[in-house]
């Protein structure tokens, strides 16, 4: 696939000057860090190893095809890289449609900024405020050969569309049998995860509800590079995809992103950092927490930790995880959504259920995740796994 470089004006327009006025006092109330903290410090997105801060590091990714590796990059945050991916998808294939609530003016998170002007209001448009309608409409359009990229404004509001996703989207190809009509054109984007003050209905990460549904691919990127490559893969995938975007990273995560179109593989995990004593498995926003905890633990405890990003949480890459677990004998799964029946439960069960891996395990598989509660406004920082909790789990696992 060779796509003309088109980092358009839409993107440039979407980039907001830094230092826009916020009510800092208001924000502080929710997201300060204890002044004496050694572990629970603010994540420094400007220096974290999770992001490619230079063009050369961005292009070194062996998953990128040679023409991309020889290309150029631009600094983008997560919403800009998603905007870029959508723009490329719209320019590559005229059957691509982008729609949802408030998508026409650019979206409440700016992910669709400039797209309606550039590609026309027939292809990028607002829908009535009705999630079951958005997904039902998207399914119908995909069933008739369109690439329908639907947006649910917050993952917290996907439930009215749950029937359409579970009973219709996921089962479409299966029940059509030899007729072979699938819903590959369907991609459902939704911002997810904690954001500091989102409380019950602007913080949820319902990925494990979707991982219980055969037929759907469930994807969560951790960075702008991933978001662009995985979203373009999702749009091209022959299977319906749920694409969950950690909204706290929309503006926070900034890195150099290749400007041409590229894809990253679905259902393949990425070993982000090799190690030999313990495996940390995560995806999405907590990857930054894990990275910070690893840095502290390796320094304090003299251990070497492997960090794996699942990227696609279903169908997920068991092979990479099991291979790592067999090597290190210790595993910790970290995710933001609640612990009960979460992704960690499935990963832990697979690790202990694999005959070969079971025999190599030196410690119980640990899950560090949100508590089994709803996301409470004032207590978010005690609910979302932080560096201290991941660090503690590493220490306990090593000392077991």
């Amino acid at each position, binding site marked *: 696939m060779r796509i003309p470089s088109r980092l358009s004006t839409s993107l440039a327009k979407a980039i*907001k000057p830094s230092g826009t*006025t*916020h*009510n800092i006092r*208001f*924000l502080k109330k929710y997201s300060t860090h204890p002044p004496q903290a050694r572990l629970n410090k603010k994540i420094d997105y400007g220096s974290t190893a999770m992001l490619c801060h230079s063009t050369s590091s961005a292009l070194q990714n062996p998953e990128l095809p040679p023409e991309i590796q020889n290309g150029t990059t631009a600094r983008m945050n997560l919403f800009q890289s998603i905007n870029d991916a959508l723009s490329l998808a719209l320019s590559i294939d*005229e*059957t691509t*449609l982008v729609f949802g609530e408030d998508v*026409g*003016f650019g979206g*409440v998170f700016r992910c669709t900024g400039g797209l*309606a*002007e550039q590609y026309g*209001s*027939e*292809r*990028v*448009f607002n*829908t*009535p405020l*009705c999630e*079951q*309608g958005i997904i*039902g*409409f998207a*399914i*119908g*359009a995909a069933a*008739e*050969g*369109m690439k329908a990229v639907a947006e649910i*404004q917050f993952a917290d*509001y996907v439930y009215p569309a749950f*029937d*359409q996703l579970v*009973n*219709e989207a996921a*089962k*479409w*190809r*299966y*029940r*059509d*049998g*030899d*007729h072979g*009509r699938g819903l590959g054109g369907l991609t459902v984007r939704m911002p997810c995860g904690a*954001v500091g003050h989102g409380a019950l*209905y*602007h913080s949820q990460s319902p990925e494990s509800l979707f991982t219980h549904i*055969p*037929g759907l*691919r469930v994807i969560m990127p951790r960075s702008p590079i991933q978001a662009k490559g995985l979203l373009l893969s999702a749009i091209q995938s*022959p*299977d319906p995809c749920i694409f969950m975007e950690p909204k706290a990273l*929309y503006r*926070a995560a900034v890195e150099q992103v290749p400007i041409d179109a590229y894809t990253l593989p679905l*259902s393949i995990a990425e070993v982000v950092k090799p190690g030999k004593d313990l495996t940390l498995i995560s995806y999405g926003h907590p990857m930054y927490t894990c990275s910070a905890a690893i840095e502290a633990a390796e320094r304090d405890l003299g251990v070497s930790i492997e960090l794996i990003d699942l990227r696609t949480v279903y*169908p997920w890459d068991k092979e990479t995880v099991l291979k790592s677990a067999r090597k290190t004998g210790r595993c910790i799964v970290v995710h933001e959504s609640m612990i009960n029946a979460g992704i960690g439960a499935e990963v832990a069960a697979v690790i202990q259920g694999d005959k070969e891996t079971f025999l190599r395990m030196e410690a119980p598989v640990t899950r560090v995740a949100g508590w089994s509660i709803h996301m409470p406004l004032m207590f978010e920082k005690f609910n979302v796994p932080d560096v201290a909790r991941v660090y503690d789990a590493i220490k306990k696992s090593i000392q077991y």
Partner: protein
Amino acid sequence: MNSQRIGRCLLRGSKEGMPASVIRRGTKGRWMGGYHSPMGPSQKPGAAGVRFPGAVNSKFTSSLSFEHPSTYTTIPTYRTMSPEGEILDPSVVLPSDDAALEMYLNMIKVSIMDVIMVEAQRQGRISFYMPSQGEEGICVGSAAALEKDDVIFSQYREAGVFMQRGYTLEDFMNQLFANRKDKGRGRNMPVHYGSKELKIHSISSPLATQIPHASGAAYALKMQRLSNSSLPPRVVACYFGEGAASEGDFHAALNIASTRSCPVIFICRNNGYAISTPTLEQYRGDGIASRGTGYGIDTIRVDGNDIWAVLEVTRKARELALKDGGRPVLVEAMSYRISHHSTSDDSFAYRARVEVEDWKRRDNPIIRLRKYLERKGVWDEAKEIEVRTNIKKEVLKALSEAEKEKKPPIKSMFEDVYKEMTPELRDQMEELKRVIEEYPEEYDVAEFEGGSASLN
């Protein structure tokens, strides 16, 4: 959804890095593409009408009165033909006698298949069946008005649509028996037909889910023709019952079809019952039709026992749906569900036998069309007997052939979940094979094509 909306607004205004001003800036002065402006011109002093953006043509009134449904007349039911088969609307375009006879035969075929398959279910030869007695006219009549490239979504009581489109008795039987020739690969319950060739999407059990699909599919057809004008103009037809119209998906579908100007014909079969629930417990408005105009949709109510009325209405609805870039149309076709809801239902537990018998004899789409054909002199008792005998034979032959076929390979249970089988499913397939082969007495695999060897 109100609180949700409020929640969003609050968050928008306060989110880190996303002050409300940033969002508003995007809209200022230029609204995207072809949207109508969300704001009307500003209010003129002394104006007779309100310029609230939500209802720009509303006039002020100083008399307080609530709109009450009883002040509106009930939407009339269009009919072209009396129960005696006489033509009442001289302007109606009637089909040729050959086409009329074909439609008549398709209705009879469905009704004979219904009787035989209900019996086959009673004998335990198939697991389930849903007849459509009383609604053959709606299905055959509307399907005859569509073009072959039009896309269809159905609920489950539309065997007449499949029959009129060319679904064969073999196709019906293979699906009902879930044998190796079933294109659905033995996965779905009986009566959940589908056909790619006939452009009918596979039926699923959840009610009303297909209605927003129809809106989206219609939008797809519209967009495809916009980018390639050599394509024929096409519409989507979507069938559902009056019970399904109570689902949220009905609301979702009509509203989005209207706002996106989708060329879709919503065809509601109002047969008086949703399983045991009579319409009085389903809604209190004027049926389903009265809802159409509320969504800004052209709407009509038609006598579903009058096949020519259904044909004419669907033909006109199709023209309307394609006008001015496309728009949805709602058709409410009135009928009576003569049969039980399904083979799992005994409808005399909730309605009188006499009521059913009355509809069966007094007003029935098949009898009405037969009277019309007899009036025209192209049909008589002898032809009726001959045709019925032949169709019965054909159905029984297709039945026994389908029944004899092997079931699909067991492997097909793991396929098509995804386009490519995942490693997880491959492992699970191997595991099932191991269990079957370790406990051969516990599983009967002989009736499945390839036995357990298919699980390789």
